[in-house]
């Protein structure tokens, strides 16, 4: 019960912040893919920057467990590209679209119907896909610092300022 209460509060906050950030708006999402509006990048990279610094310290204190997905190179790339095609056609991604419904965009119901179909089709094929595509280029659960053989600390000291510079650059576009 406590878990569901947390999910409720966190979900309310997530939808609230997505809406305030402007990324529940169709023209802002498509504007990002058209490379004429960079709001989506600004929101995502800010979240990544703040999130990764906080998570680093929480990991140091062993307050959080990692939830890292394995590298399945072929599935990541093909799935990622297919997702991108769908993202452009729908004009929303799964999270921003749910939030867009909350701001009155009933048009999101069309892509949501599609997502139910797509999810079930995947489930139908999941046994086969797990044994084929998902095994191609399987490198396990690996992080960028692990791949580069550097500590998380060293990586963040270099990467966090870089992300910050990108964010500053985006503000001048």
């Amino acid at each position, binding site marked *: 019960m406590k878990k569901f209460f947390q999910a409720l509060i966190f979900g309310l906050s997530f939808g609230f912040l997505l809406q305030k950030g402007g990324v529940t708006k169709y023209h802002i999402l498509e504007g990002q*893919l058209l490379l004429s509006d960079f709001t989506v990048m600004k929101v995502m990279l800010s979240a990544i920057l703040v999130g990764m610094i906080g998570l680093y310290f929480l990991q140091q204190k062993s307050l959080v467990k990692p939830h890292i997905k394995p590298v399945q190179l072929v599935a990541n790339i093909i799935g*990622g590209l297919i997702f991108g095609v769908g993202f*452009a056609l729908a004009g929303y991604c799964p999270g921003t679209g749910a939030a867009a419904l909350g701001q*009155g965009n009933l048009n999101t119901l069309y892509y949501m119907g599609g997502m139910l179909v*797509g999810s079930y089709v995947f489930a139908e094929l*999941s046994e086969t896909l797990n044994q084929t595509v998902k095994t191609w280029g399987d490198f396990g659960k690996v992080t960028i610092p692990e791949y580069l053989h550097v500590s998380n600390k060293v990586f963040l000291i270099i990467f966090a300022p870089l992300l910050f510079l990108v964010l500053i650059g985006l503000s001048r576009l």
Partner: protein
Amino acid sequence: MSEYKEVINVLGQSAWSPYLAGSLIGVLAWFTFTLSDKPIGASSAYATLAGMIGKLFAKEHTLNLKYYQDNPPRLNWEFVFVLSSIGGAFISSYTGGEFEVRWIPKLWEKIHGTDNYAIYAFIGGILMAFGARLAGGCTSGHGISGTLQLSVASWISLLCFFVGGVITIQFLY
């Protein structure tokens, strides 16, 4: 071809600075990881709902699918989280004077008129859900939660989301 740029400009920006909203989403991730032991994610909730509906019509068959054996289709944290995000965006848009019931996004209507959005969005939804399940997450699960953990799989997937989207949008606008 640059007609869409004017429309995007006229339709305007986010209520808050995207940097602020994004940073707070990063802070929210600290809490979901620490208190709920969960990464922020959106796409699996659609798969859960598809499985719940599947159970109504073909219970045995649905529960025997590999994906639903691994991810039982019942009320869970992710589902409550996404459902609540609809409410959060409603609160944000209603109090911010941005709530508006619409059946077609404004940008689409201005460029393409009132036809065809539903079918494009529906197909987009199918592709997005299938792609997300194949890649192992969406713009939330991979794009925020995975990337901030510096997961290699997530950074590759996120890149592919945008490559697929940026190419596809060229045919739409």
